[in-house]
């Protein structure tokens, strides 16, 4: 169900003229038109938070880089989504993510099905130039069906959002600041002891990496099923 009256805007993305509803974001319009903008924290069906900064684009006349996922279209906007500068920044951001925790792709349950891993490949990253930080992060395997391995978490908070917005349980949240930040269940109790977790597994399915996985999966066996998300949102909100 669309709002009663919606204005249509025309804009340019990478030199191409495109039309958009006024309530659309640059990312939505780009995707509709087959223009690729890399994203990590974005997932269709969840609210946008603009946190990973991978989808930053350049808009002519604006000195700042803008996150495509939350920036609404404007009439006459000229958007550049893939300049050399953006490519360079995206590479550094993904390298920062790889350096932050212990992403050992070769032994990861999500090897071959990981958004971070494939993002590195898409951006042409063949090595991480910043030093690895290798922090000592815990693994929570207390849940009977799922595992939370903080070593592979990129703090995109998809789990937090899906649990709050779709499942309505708000089991997940974030604690700590800066590089001490980590996702937690309930008030930082073990996942298996959570009073609120419904064991629905949505968090596992939306997790971009091997941080949240199903028990019993070995290397490369954990591929995520996310097709349900847009439908759930549709059913809940009656949104187009």
């Amino acid at each position, binding site marked *: 169900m669309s709002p009663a009256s919606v204005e249509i805007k025309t804009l340019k993305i990478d030199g191409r003229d495109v039309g958009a509803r006024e309530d659309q974001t640059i990312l939505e319009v780009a995707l509709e038109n087959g223009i690729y903008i890399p994203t990590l924290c974005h997932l269709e069906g969840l609210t946008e938070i603009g946190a990973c900064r991978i989808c930053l684009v350049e808009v002519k006349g604006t000195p700042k880089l803008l996150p495509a996922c939350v920036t609404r279209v404007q009439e006459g906007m000229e958007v550049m989504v893939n300049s050399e500068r953006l490519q360079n920044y995206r590479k550094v951001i993904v390298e920062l993510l*790889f350096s932050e925790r*212990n*992403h*050992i*792709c*070769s*032994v*990861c349950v999500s*090897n*071959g099905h990981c958004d971070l*891993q*494939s993002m*590195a*490949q*898409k951006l*042409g*990253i*063949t*090595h*991480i*130039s910043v*030093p*690895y930080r*290798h*922090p*000592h*992060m815990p693994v929570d395997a207390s849940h009977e069906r799922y595992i939370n391995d903080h070593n592979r978490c990129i703090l995109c908070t998809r789990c937090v959002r899906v649990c709050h917005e779709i499942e309505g349980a708000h089991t997940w949240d974030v604690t700590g600041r800066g590089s001490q930040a980590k996702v937690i269940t309930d008030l930082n109790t073990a996942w298996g002891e959570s009073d609120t977790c419904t064991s629905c597994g949505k968090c596992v399915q939306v997790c971009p990496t091997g941080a949240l996985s199903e028990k019993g999966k070995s290397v490369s066996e954990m591929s995520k099923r996310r097709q349900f998300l847009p439908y759930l949102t549709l059913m809940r909100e009656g949104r187009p």
Partner: protein
Amino acid sequence: MSKVKVATVWLDGCSGCHMSLLDIDERLIALAEKIDLLYGPLVDAKVFPEWVDVTLVEGAVSSEEDLAKIRKIRAHTKILISLGDCAVTGNVPSMRDVFTVDEVLNRTYVENSDLKQLAPESVVPKLLNKVRPVHEFVNVDIFVPGCPPSADNIFYVLSELLEGRMPDLAMTARFGA
């Protein structure tokens, strides 16, 4: 035309990258016509040659011996290639980085040992505090990620170099592959 001088080395790795190199299979014969393999686990030489055109490095740098080796190799090599995830990222060997060296040695030689529960003090090279990828110590010219890198990727890299081109693996290779 003189053949291209090639060396391969094996630091802290599992030999999987060398296996993948051999998996080039019959194409090895074509390569062998243009390449002289002077040094490495696959040949008998004991001393690293004075000068080679290309060295393929498998494995991460995790001991003082590794470090000495890689510095020496860098000084005698024109094009240094980090071959595989251990050389490129630290990979599995670097999983010990969240522990101290003492914890690691204790786990290996004391806790998990039935006989002679004692960490070695000689013979085994002294471990560095952290396992690091090769490029954190010396300049690396080409990165070939993968665990192991596919035979096709290795063949591609070598063929491109033989043609005098720099290989571009940006879209074909990935970590963990």
